[in-house]
């Protein structure tokens, strides 16, 4: 694979899979905060 193909692959993975990971992490954080608010 050429260097630019590897760089694009890494960027694509970071954008898309990173976007998914960030969305899930945000949802988990928000859910935990809501739970804490209810119990606190």
């Amino acid at each position, binding site marked *: *694979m*050429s260097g*630019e*193909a*590897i760089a*694009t*692959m890494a*960027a*694509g*993975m970071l*954008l*898309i*899979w990173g*976007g*998914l990971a960030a*969305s*899930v992490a*945000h*949802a988990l954080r*928000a*859910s935990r905060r*809501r739970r804490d608010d209810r119990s606190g």
Partner: protein
Amino acid sequence: MSQPAREQWGTRAGFLLAAIGSAIGLGNIWRFPAVAYDNGGGAFFLPYVFALLTAGIPLLALEYAIGHRFRGSAPLAFRRLHARAEWLGWWQIAISLVIASYYAVIVAWAGSYTVFAATEAWADDPEDFFFGSYLQQTAEAGALGGLVPAVVVPLVAVWAVVLIVLLRGVRRGIELANRIMIPTLVITFLVLVVRAVSLPGAAGGLDAFFRPDFAGLFDPAVWVAAYGQIFFSLSIAFAIMITYASYLPRRTDLTGSGMIAGFANASFELLAGIGVFAALGFMAATQGIAVDEVVADGIGLAFVVFPEILSTFPALQGLFGVLFFGSLLLAGLSSLISIVQTVVAAVGDKLGWPQRRAVLVTGLPLAAASLLYATRGGVAYLDVVDYFINGFGIAAAGLVEVVLIAWVLRTLDRLRRHADGVSDMRLGWWWTIALGVVTPVMLGYQLLENLRTAVLAGYGDYPVAFQAGAGWVVAAAVLVAGLALARQGWRADVLQLEDFTVEADRRFLKDAS
């Protein structure tokens, strides 16, 4: 007669898996890789992610907000939104009805091939096996030529699975099925991708897929392709997301769910692109030709090119064949379940029927109608109906949806307040611009392009009369059906919203003031 309480998802994860299962379909595996390759390779990811953020996720959030706020299938939700919007819901339901009728047949093919793969039944000529031995395709477009038992048997099995899942309801049927199918699909596909990237020649395929052609970023056609891919792969504008969101409980993060579903669908597409092009690179290396000579998409990629690739695997051809076609089967089944449920929910809402009755009265005739595509001439009908119902049905319904809501009824702000009131993430001005300006412009341009191509060049080599009958007439008939069905009245108690949304609106309006 009182309205039965609306069923709800058991958990948010259950809803998300069902929404993701609906979005991840056959197009993720056989359409996205070729679209990306043809439109700038690696450079395509920039317009693709831009389209996801400015059209895909905003549209998901919009449909979640409509379904959640108005607590109904698409016709009921649009009727509650505005008295003159109901026809749009029925139009989308009619589109789903047509899509379900042929989509079930493709899922049945995947089921057959999951069995065929164990013995590599296609032998040396996968193309002749698929169109000749298996489908027994007639030479003349439009001729039915009788039912093909080899397709009818798996088709009956597919409908049996779908109807059993739907008979069990939202929580014990759809949610449970997706809780099993989606993790299985992801794990199976991951195994396939890991195997594909370790094949000799895979690096060449990945290089062809990811090598960026940045000049493509200045080509409007590449941006239109990116918006088209996002639009068609997210199950938007044919009533599914509205229906699924109507089963959400009162407190739920609509915007966050839209982000997760949108990115999960894109993540699977990226994974599919890696797997498909690694396998194509292996095939090209084996045959000593360039990757661009083996690139394919659609039915040809799945049922002709992949069997050829699988037969040349160094080992365990049968196992990987079963995994590949099993993945197609799972991806197709989870989408088909969602498409049929939108129709079932609409009929149930309109007639006040419980889920079981609506499933049987709607599902059985729909299953019978799908036999058209299990005939010897069925593949030609399937091809033409699919092209016209996607290019003109879904694209037009999507365009009308955003224009109606943003510009005619001007209800975007109301829906945004609802979504913001229940979500952890707030929709800002970008959402209004994305739905009010960006999405209508891109969808409008795409619809005009589709129209220009279909009028000037037609579709494929099919006779004009056949394209008119199976294509244009079907695309027009779904619109007429939508308008006609909206003329039937509702029972007054059905149109009343349950208290929780009214309460929620009061609270949000108070917050906003």
